[in-house]
């Protein structure tokens, strides 16, 4: 029983740890072409319905300087890493790359990539920011239909309505399972340490969603057979921000007796925390999900609800504190933070702000800050 759970955990961790190897393995197993999907949201459902694999492109561990040809030093580390890898030809096995335009950096990346890496078949997509209004929804539909055509051309076949319906259902199922998974984590602070939790969630970006869903469902089932672990000594943490990398950041939290009971990371829960009702066409459901996705730095939110959302999360998960992982140079997140800070302070929620880059030479400063935060919470 315990072994089944552990084996599944190890398997998923491995898939999350080695993006390229995992993708190539999945491609081999499924015989599918792969399409790269940039942060934050892409119409992955369309890629899947076209019989291809949507795979995540959220930076990586690189240290080269090729990207300096296109980007100044004050560009975020995610886009520097992506561009570096593109220029190295690391992505040439992809059939296309969907590049989004949520921030100003991404708009420029679309343009540079079309020139620098024409072989990657860049498919730009611009989501509406007025996503709740009739005009925004109309535009989103136009945009999804345009991408659908592009994907059909790349896949060499037409996306049937039934395939799209199944794909949207599969993604809803994925989101449901992941909500259940992240809720389960709180009962197993030893088995599902911060890093393990992160890698399991991350594995979804490199696997066929159908297979991934089966594995995670099975894992939840196996976990539920085990008695909840004693977590009294540990501090219950919520993570907010873009991503919880560099490698090593989460281990520092574990070293300081912290474990992640919930998150608001763009790279993790924002991918699955919102599910639209099963009404209307598959495209309508995809549109509705984006319309409902609030508290995200990358989607216009007139109510600016993220701070209040985090306060509510703190109650719901009985968290001891919130760590805001600010990815350096990611300006949409940088703009959200002062308002969040104000909201959290008003509600008396303990929080820590740390600035991170995906590749960092030294984590010592972070270690000291996280340690002192742990002491404050104790």
């Amino acid at each position: 029983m315990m072994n089944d759970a552990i084996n599944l955990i190890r398997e998923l961790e491995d898939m999350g740890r080695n993006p390229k190897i995992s993708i190539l393995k999945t491609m081999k197993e499924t015989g599918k072409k792969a399409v790269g999907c940039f942060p934050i949201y892409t119409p992955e459902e369309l890629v899947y319905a076209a019989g291809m694999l949507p795979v995540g492109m959220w930076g990586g561990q690189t240290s080269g300087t090729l990207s300096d040809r296109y980007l100044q030093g004050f560009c975020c580390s995610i886009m520097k890493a992506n561009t570096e890898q593109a220029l190295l030809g690391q992505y040439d096995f992809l059939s296309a790359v969907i590049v989004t335009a949520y921030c100003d950096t991404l708009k420029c990346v679309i343009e540079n990539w079309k020139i620098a890496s024409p072989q990657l078949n860049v498919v730009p997509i611009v989501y509406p920011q007025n996503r709740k209004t009739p005009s925004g929804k109309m535009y989103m539909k136009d945009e999804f239909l345009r991408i659908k055509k592009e994907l059909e051309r790349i896949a060499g076949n037409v996306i049937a309505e039934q395939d799209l319906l199944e794909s949207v259902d599969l993604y809803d199922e994925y989101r449901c399972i992941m909500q259940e998974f992240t809720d389960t984590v709180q009962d197993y602070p030893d088995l599902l340490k911060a890093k393990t939790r992160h890698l399991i969630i991350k594995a979804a970006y490199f696997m066929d969603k159908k297979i991934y869903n089966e594995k995670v469902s099975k894992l939840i089932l196996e976990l539920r057979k085990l008695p909840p672990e004693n977590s009294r000594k540990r501090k219950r943490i919520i993570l907010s921000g873009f991503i919880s990398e560099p490698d090593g950041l989460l281990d520092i939290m574990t070293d300081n007796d912290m474990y992640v009971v919930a998150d608001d990371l763009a790279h993790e829960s924002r991918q699955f925390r919102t599910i639209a009702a099963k009404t209307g066409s598959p495209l309508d459901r995809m549109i509705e999900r984006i319309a409902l996705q609030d508290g995200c730095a990358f989607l216009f939110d007139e109510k600016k609800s993220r701070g209040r959302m985090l306060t509510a999360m703190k109650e719901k998960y009985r968290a001891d504190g919130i760590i805001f992982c600010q990815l350096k140079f990611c300006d949409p997140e940088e703009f959200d933070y002062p308002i969040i800070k104000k909201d959290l302070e008003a509600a008396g929620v303990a929080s820590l702000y740390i600035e991170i880059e995906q590749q960092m030479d030294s984590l010592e400063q972070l270690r000291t800050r996280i340690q002192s935060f742990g002491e404050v919470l104790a």
Partner: protein
Amino acid sequence: MEHQKTSKQLLGELLDKHYADALQAKADGKPVAWSTSIAPQELLETMGIHVVYPENHAAAIGARKHAQEFINHSEGKGYSVDICSYARVNLAYMDIQQCEAANIPLPDLIFCCNNICNTVIKWYENIARELNVPMIFFDLPFNHAYEVSDQNVRYIKAQILEAIIRLEEITGQKFDYDRFGEVMRISSETSLWWKNASLLACAKPSPLNGFELFNYMATIVCMRGTKEGLELFKLWHDELKEKSERGIGPWKDAEEKYRVMWDGIACWPYLGDTYKVLKKYGINMVTSTYPDSWYIVYDENDLDGMARAYSSNYVNRNLDFGTDNIVNIVKDFRLDGIIYHSNRSCKLMDFRQFEVQRRVEEATGVPSVIFDGDQTDPRAFSLAQFETRIQALVEMMEARKKEWGVS
């Protein structure tokens, strides 16, 4: 006979009046809006809503060397040093509400258009939240294809119509479509005269010292929809035309030796310093990317045209368009060189600059330099580096003149 004012006098008076009127409107209990610099102000003008422009105001604060205290305040509130310095200045002004450079009333309404960048979405979202005022937001999708697509035009037009309904709800007044037509006509005409005036700098020597563009920019932002604005730009045009016909160059005490364009925003805290360095070497900055940014021209009552015009500014267009734009400027203005401002504040302008520079150089052979700066944060600019880069540019321009006999 009354002595006729020069456009420069008029410019100063109009700007003073612009701020005074807004403060008065607020004192009288009338609604005031804060708007981004290239937004469909036609709707607000039609409704008679006073509007001020945080970017203009932040630039004025920067030019009067007051930016640092505001920047410190914002950073103290948790704003990162890496975000746009206009936002850092303005978000602090929202709290402090007092500056010697100029004062503006707080808004009752936010008017935001992301054709200049997505940064403004976040910045204005924060103002709306902090002041608890409604935000009307125009989403103009980035044009990654060369032309503005019909799909985008459809979306933008629909948003203009939705905004009109929202304005009616907020003010409780009916939208006057006749007046709207008139404002549309005036706005397009003002844009035309702004562009016509700036085009006079194509003459050799240029009657225009391009740093004046930086001054007039404030009025094209805030007076585009008004008769006074229209008159100002006509007058400016006529003055420049007369100067040009008489063969007068940009300066009384120096000759225009080199003609360059400035890519990006000015360094407001160092406006005088940068100007002096250029003038010292006989460099006249004859144009910049500003003239085209406020060239928003469309037919009266043509909402599709209006939607397209607002989405057509170069920062919202793709890299091919941006390159062609500068290549044409090089030809039309007979440039000797280009100065690119790598502006720490503005990622959208920066992260295409390297490739644009390479392409423009390949297409035109005109030399260029990039310098590091910021539009309002005084800490991100070094006068010594600027001058070194300018010296390098002068050497390249000189070498090219010798080699090609270009003069």
